């Protein structure tokens, strides 16, 4: 039961270019969406979130876009840096944000090359 899907297991981008990571979801009850970054042997680190009442949220180099009708969100990183190389997880929760459990996607491994 994959309610949150990240169809690209990996992505390679040159330093300075834009990285676009995609995520699709099936559960229309999801109300709050988050992106986490994860290094090996560490816990997920929160990056950015968006509520379903918005279609865009920006924080420095990171922008998340939400298309509710398509049940799709994306994370844009610009410019990409070598330190951005990690696994990125999309996560979704019901009404109340982290008062509800998070359902994670399978992750996309981003590699930023020099």
């Amino acid at each position, binding site marked *: 039961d994959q309610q949150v899907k990240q169809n690209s297991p990996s992505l390679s981008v040159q330093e300075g270019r834009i990285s676009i990571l995609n995520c699709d979801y099936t559960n229309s009850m999801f109300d*709050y969406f*988050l992106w*986490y970054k994860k290094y090996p*042997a*560490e*816990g*997920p*680190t*929160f990056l950015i*979130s968006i*509520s379903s009442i918005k279609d865009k949220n920006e924080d420095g180099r990171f922008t998340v876009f939400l298309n509710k009708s398509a049940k799709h969100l994306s994370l844009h990183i610009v410019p990409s840096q070598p330190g951005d190389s990690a696994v990125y*997880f999309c*996560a979704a929760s019901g009404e*109340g*944000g*982290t*008062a*509800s*459990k*998070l*359902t*994670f*996607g*399978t*992750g996309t491994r981003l590699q930023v090359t020099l």
Partner: protein
Amino acid sequence: EPEVTQTPSHQVTQMGQEVILRCVPISNHLYFYWYRQILGQKVEFLVSFYNNEISEKSEIFDDQFSVERPDGSNFTLKIRSTKLEDSAMYFCASGGGWNTEAFFGQGTRLTVV
């Protein structure tokens, strides 16, 4: 910056033994969670805890699992009789509530042999 801390970082146990994984959530947070990640798979929800009781649990969280907040700071996950398939990274998380992000600890790698 406040953080969620977990101990131990790595636990090796024999099948059938009990283990307790420990977490210290961020002090002013109200919602506490355990998640796990089996190698190569996605992060899965196990249980959420609020107001000193379980608020939600997944089907993974069967009778072998229990959680406790024995004092004002610690949050523990106990597995009563470990199985080989319990081998995974276990993550504790805490959150402040509505529309706030959950912060994760660095994880405990549990290896059942």
